[in-house]
């Protein structure tokens, strides 16, 4: 479990002598953290079930006679214009949305951290150059940048992943650079250098472990934005392509018939809000637990 290794990493990074409660206990006794963790767990389980095909009905199967059926015993969340089961499609959509968001954030997080740490640690003109390049990406509205990238790569899931990753890389770079700047000025880093520790070692042993907290928080928050961006791109018809389900696609399909079949809009809308809310709350909880200094920001 990555959370456990993380917990031990956090515990060892703790400066005080007294033993802190395990990370998970602290997270789950924090209201935001507990709520967020619950919603995110539910979301991930649903997504995995949806991805594995364990849905009530095949998500793309059309039951011609049951078109636009309101929620009932057979179709818990109703059916859409083509007679497809909304619940099954929401589950598949959860998988598609989560996959895109998670992969995009993983790429952005790794790349952005690498860029930010390099810039901050080496400093000087390389730092200026790198951060200026990042500024270029910041000068675009996120969605416009994503659109431009999708125009180059063509529509589809993979393009959406790359587009979202590019949009969020500069944010991670900024978040990672800040702590490096302050950490490398710490006395223990100077001490390590004095006893002849080599630079890569200083980075790996003394700097990276101490900047994990803001990064982990950022990962959780970025996941919530990435979910929103994926939904927006799919809503515009640029992310997940029909007949594959995605929450954004489902919502876009519902707009023309929302008057006759409000459930087509309500359920996808509700799960998007819930998913984003879950990651936001988890992020808040993680911040409270991992980095109390940031709490008041």
């Amino acid at each position, binding site marked *: 479990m990555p959370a456990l290794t993380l917990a031990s990493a956090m515990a060892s990074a703790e400066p005080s002598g007294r033993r802190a409660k395990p990370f998970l206990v602290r997270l789950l006794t924090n209201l935001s953290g507990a709520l967020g963790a619950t919603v995110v767990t539910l979301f991930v389980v649903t997504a995995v079930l949806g991805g594995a095909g364990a849905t009530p009905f095949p998500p793309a199967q059309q039951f011609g006679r049951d078109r636009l059926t309101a929620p009932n015993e057979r179709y818990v969340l109703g059916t859409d214009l083509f007679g497809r089961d909304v619940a099954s499609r929401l589950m598949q959509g959860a998988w598609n949305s989560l996959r895109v968001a998670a992969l995009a954030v993983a790429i952005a997080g790794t790349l952005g951290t690498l860029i930010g740490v390099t810039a901050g640690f080496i400093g000087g003109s390389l730092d200026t150059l790198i951060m*200026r*390049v990042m*500024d*270029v990406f*910041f*000068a*675009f*509205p*996120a*969605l*416009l940048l994503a*659109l*431009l*990238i999708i*125009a*180059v790569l*063509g529509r589809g899931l993979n393009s959406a992943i790359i587009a979202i990753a590019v949009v969020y890389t500069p944010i991670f770079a900024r978040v990672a650079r800040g702590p490096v700047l302050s950490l490398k000025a710490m006395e223990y880093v100077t001490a390590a250098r004095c006893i002849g520790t080599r630079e890569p070692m200083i980075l790996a042993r003394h700097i990276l472990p101490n900047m994990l907290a803001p990064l982990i928080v950022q990962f959780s928050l970025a996941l*919530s934005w990435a979910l*929103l961006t994926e*939904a*927006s791109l799919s*809503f*515009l018809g640029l992310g997940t392509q029909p007949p594959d389900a995605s929450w*954004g696609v489902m*919502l*876009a399909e*519902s*707009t023309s018939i*929302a*008057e006759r079949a*409000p459930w087509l*809009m309500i359920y996808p*809308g509700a799960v*998007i*809000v*819930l998913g*984003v*809310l879950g990651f*936001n*709350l988890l992020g808040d909880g993680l911040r409270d637990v991992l980095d109390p200094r940031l709490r*008041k*920001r």
Partner: protein
Amino acid sequence: MLRYIAQRLIAFLPTLLGVSVLVFFAMRLIPGDAITAQLGTEAGMLTPTQRAALERYYGLDKPPVEQYFIWLGEVTQGNLGFSIRHGKPVLEVILDRFPLTLQLALMSVIIALLIGIPIGVLSAIYHNTLIDLIGRLFALIGLALPNFLVGTLIIYILSVYFKILPNSGNYVSFGDDPRRNLEQMIFPAFTLGFALAASLMRMTRSAMLEVLREDYIRTARSKGLRERRVTYSHALRNALIPVVTLLGVQAGYLLGGAVIVEQIFALPGLGRLAVNAISQREYALVQGVTLFIAFNFVMINLAVDVIYASIDPRISYGKR
């Protein structure tokens, strides 16, 4: 101060140059060629000689790097190129759309300020009470609601319960018919303003909480000032500094056009212009629009820094 502004302006040049390089070459990486994208099926009827003539006419026969420098040279003279589809200079097309985007941005910022700041202040004053809880809940939901969902819901509610269709007709500018214009703009502005209000609320709340703990607030109270005076002229003024930053960044993005909201409410703003230009591969238009958007963005950031100085006397730009 003037020197500071000049320095910052010079520092912005590389950013704008970077934007232009990125967009210019990204556009040329898009599969397919510009002539086909412009003419559609008619492009198939072109003879190779005609096609070559068109490419020469638009400067597309030259290597991309050379094309870039020619374009850059024109841009520095205020010429952003010509939009074939609109039959007008790019700058003119952009300036046609800009008033709408500006109005939408202004209205949503006003709505966000009217909702976000009072709720944030109340939440902080009544920290950890029911009022605070409701305020925080509002912010959480506001941040989790995507624009397109709020927009779709608003349209749904209006059409089902009030039998109104916003923007059922064509867009009317404020100058032509202020009333109709406001009727058309208020819902999109609310859609955009809602999310912004949520983040403003969060920022106001946490900044207020921090400021209210400061020594000078205790001093103000102990010298007998009324609570209202302490809250508004001592605490809020200082708490607004991070709020202004956030507002600046967000307003900068809003001026880039709100792609989704413009799409949902059928408004001809900069966002939709950019999206359509990308899909129609109008090189000059995409380059012009993105450069314009980036320019607005960096300018707003500069304005924010300048506003800082006027609300926070501790910041001075004279010596750095």
